């Protein structure tokens, strides 16, 4: 009888274990973490005694990345996760620096004609490809012809398809003519320069001018790069070798970090960061993602501006930030990234960052809904961050009489139904920027293909056209600020926050640099 009781208990416990085993998280590694934690603490103590932090060259680093690479050809790669790695191998005439400004790379200087139609680039002396050849004007012409479609008719980078002619003036000077002026076009000249005629071979053996050169790539395993000893920037890079290792889930990443088989991992959740904080340097910076409760302006209920404003008022962004990102997000009220300081208009006062329930209720009453409204929030369920935010919002909305319901959908369903099909009421997700101020403004023009919120404002369209054409930076910035104001007045969408990127870096490493675009720069990392 006792035996039977015991076996019953065992069965019940086992079924429990099966349930919690599905996620392969937690339990397994938590028992291991204690002894290893101690050992790290002791090493930390010993490094602490060396007061002088000296910069050292050499060494290898393993970086955990989230997904496989879609192409090693820098002109054909589209996934943000691929571009963040190729940033280390390739460079353009110019490149984005850590402040989001442009710096000269392969070009040592450039000038733009008065009318904005002719760009003249002067090439830097002695920049060498990884194969040892010096970068020539022919290479630049070939690369620009290839991305703009002048080579074979298909532009590989759509922004650069406006190029009508690339002319070699002399061995060090290239002149580019474009069809229409746009002051932000210069950012697109960060497109990689590759050796003339190498286009077809790039995917198999990528050759660029970046701080690291390609060594090997194994699908589903990762990519290895080594130091480019002849890199044009003096003193960079520090490391001899970097191994980008594909880690297929966040849970695996946590285990690999704790086992120290990877030293850098960039996409931690708040709770993972909490677990790792004793063993790793946890660094955080704003990402280039704009999270919002996107409102479908074409929905019968939400076509009323007062309802949209009521939603904006009812939202308590402070609490949402605290709950889902530990208070590390930057609260926003427009689609512009706050990191782009000269273009960003701080409109957080418009609807407040806390909940203003009375105002929301009054607006709803005015709109003819004294008893509140029903709202459906569609969320791509693979994003835990958005799911949690939605949880918090639903609760906040109750106070203002908004009865919200979460509709979790798969990522593919979200793409087809919500993003492309525009069949939704509201959706909680994020859009990502390439770092140029126009990128996230462009999509809210009424006829834009990417305008999935169906925002329609003639004034917005008009001002956007002026902004794109404006040559003077101050004037342009003012137009962008006006656009944000229009969007906010119309409550086109309820913007929430720019979540941080949280990175775990081994305590032995220094020099991790954040960029306002989605890249990981390995050239500045060194062993302390």
């Amino acid at each position, binding site marked *: 009888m006792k035996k039977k009781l015991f076996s019953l208990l065992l069965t019940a416990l086992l079924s*429990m274990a099966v349930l919690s085993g599905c996620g392969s*998280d937690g339990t397994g590694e938590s028992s291991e973490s204690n002894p290893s934690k101690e050992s790290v603490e002791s090493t930390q103590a010993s490094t602490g005694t060396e007061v002088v932090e000296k910069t050292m060259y050499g060494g290898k680093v393993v970086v955990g990345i989230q997904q496989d690479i879609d192409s090693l050809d820098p002109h054909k790669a589209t996934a943000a996760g691929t571009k963040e790695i190729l940033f280390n191998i390739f460079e353009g005439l110019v490149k984005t620096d850590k402040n989001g400004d442009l710096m000269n790379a392969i070009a040592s200087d450039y000038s733009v004609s008065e009318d904005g139609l002719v760009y003249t680039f002067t090439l830097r002396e002695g920049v060498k490809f990884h194969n040892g050849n010096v970068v020539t004007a022919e290479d630049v012409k070939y690369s620009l012809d290839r991305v703009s479609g002048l080579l074979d008719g298909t532009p590989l980078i759509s922004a650069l398809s406006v190029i009508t002619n690339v002319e070699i003036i002399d061995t060090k000077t290239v002149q580019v003519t474009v069809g229409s002026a746009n002051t932000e076009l210069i950012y697109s000249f960060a497109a990689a320069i590759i050796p003339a005629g190498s286009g077809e071979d790039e995917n198999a053996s990528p050759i660029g001018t970046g701080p690291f050169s390609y060594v090997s790539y194994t699908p589903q395993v990762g990519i290895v790069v080594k130091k480019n000893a002849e890199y044009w920037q003096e003193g960079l890079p520090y490391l001899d070798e970097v191994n980008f290792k594909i880690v297929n889930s966040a849970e695996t990443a946590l285990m690999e970090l704790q086992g120290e088989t990877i030293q850098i991992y960039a996409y931690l959740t708040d709770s993972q960061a909490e677990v790792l904080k004793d063993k790793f340097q946890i660094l955080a910076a704003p990402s280039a993602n704009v999270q919002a409760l996107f409102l479908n302006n074409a929905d019968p209920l939400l076509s009323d501006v007062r309802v949209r404003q009521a939603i904006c008022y009812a939202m308590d962004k402070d*609490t949402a930030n605290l*709950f889902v990102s530990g208070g590390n997000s930057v609260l926003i009220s427009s689609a512009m990234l706050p990191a782009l300081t000269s273009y960003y208009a701080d409109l957080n006062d418009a609807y407040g960052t806390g909940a203003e329930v009375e105002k929301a209720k009054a607006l709803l009453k005015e709109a003819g809904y004294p008893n509140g409204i029903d709202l459906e929030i569609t969320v791509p369920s693979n994003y835990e961050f958005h799911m949690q935010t939605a949880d918090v919002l639903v609760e906040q909305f109750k106070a203002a009489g908004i009865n919200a319901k979460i509709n979790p959908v798969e990522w593919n369903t979200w793409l087809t139904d919500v993003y492309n099909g525009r069949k939704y009421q509201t959706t909680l997700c994020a859009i990502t920027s390439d770092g140029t101020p126009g990128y996230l403004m462009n999509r809210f023009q009424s006829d834009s293909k990417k305008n999935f919120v169906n925002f329609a404002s003639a004034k917005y369209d008009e001002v956007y056209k002026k902004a794109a054409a404006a040559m003077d930076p101050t004037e342009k910035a003012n137009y962008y600020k006006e656009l944000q104001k229009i969007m906010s007045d119309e409550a086109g969408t309820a913007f929430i926050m720019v979540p941080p990127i949280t990175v775990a870096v081994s305590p032995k490493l220094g020099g991790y640099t954040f960029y306002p675009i989605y890249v990981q720069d390995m050239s500045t990392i060194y062993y302390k």
Partner: protein
Amino acid sequence: MKKSSIWKNKYLLIGLFMTGLCLLLGILGLFWTPYEPTKISAAERFVGPSLKHLFGTDNFGRDIFSRVMKGLSATIVIGTSVVLFSATMGILLGALTGYFGGIVDEIVMRITDALNGFPSILLALVLISIFGNGKQNVILALGLVFIPSYVRIVRSEFIRLRDADFIKRARLMGVSKVRILFVHILPNIFSVFWVSVMIGFNNAILAESGMSYLGIGVQPPDASLGKMLSDAQGYLQRAPWFALSSGLTIVWLVLGFALLSEGVQRMNNN
């Protein structure tokens, strides 16, 4: 059966106590919980178990005891509905195929064989992806998945009894077939049937928790034991009571029903 032997049947007593407590909390949870189960509070995140919050609070500062109660109600409602649906279908199909046999019997049994060929959770997942999410669809999917087990048991009992003397006699007396099936045979299979209902209820609870754990089934912000367990995973070290409270509740409920079915079986054997 003598009264004293019920008190000696420890399985039955412990099982009744464990399931009774859960049922009580679950039914109470339909109407009342100590705190609003979805009420978030920034000030009370990850508060450990105390008299104020019996099971502590979760990452949103929600009272876990209230959520467990709500989760129990959801689980019990789903479990009961699933068992009602699949057991009714099981009795109907099992009775007809078992008593009459023939070609219909062959077809129904081969279909149940095919259904049994799939792991039940997997089959339920397929059905959910066809029907879509939501409580009703979970009930429907699990209900369909669990029909075969009842059909088999009921059918084998009907085959055993259809040629028994008392049935033969009833047939000779011209009793209608419906009456023979449901008045003469059915009451005689209850002892076996109850046990399979208990086990079926347990399986339904585990399947529902498993599906909620995987993110289908009961949807947030509504509480569900399985979903709570998966949410708690990220906070195992920081707030162990979060995972323990939902996990142990599932263990408690499943163990209770297992003991209860064992108890019922023993009671029948005596």
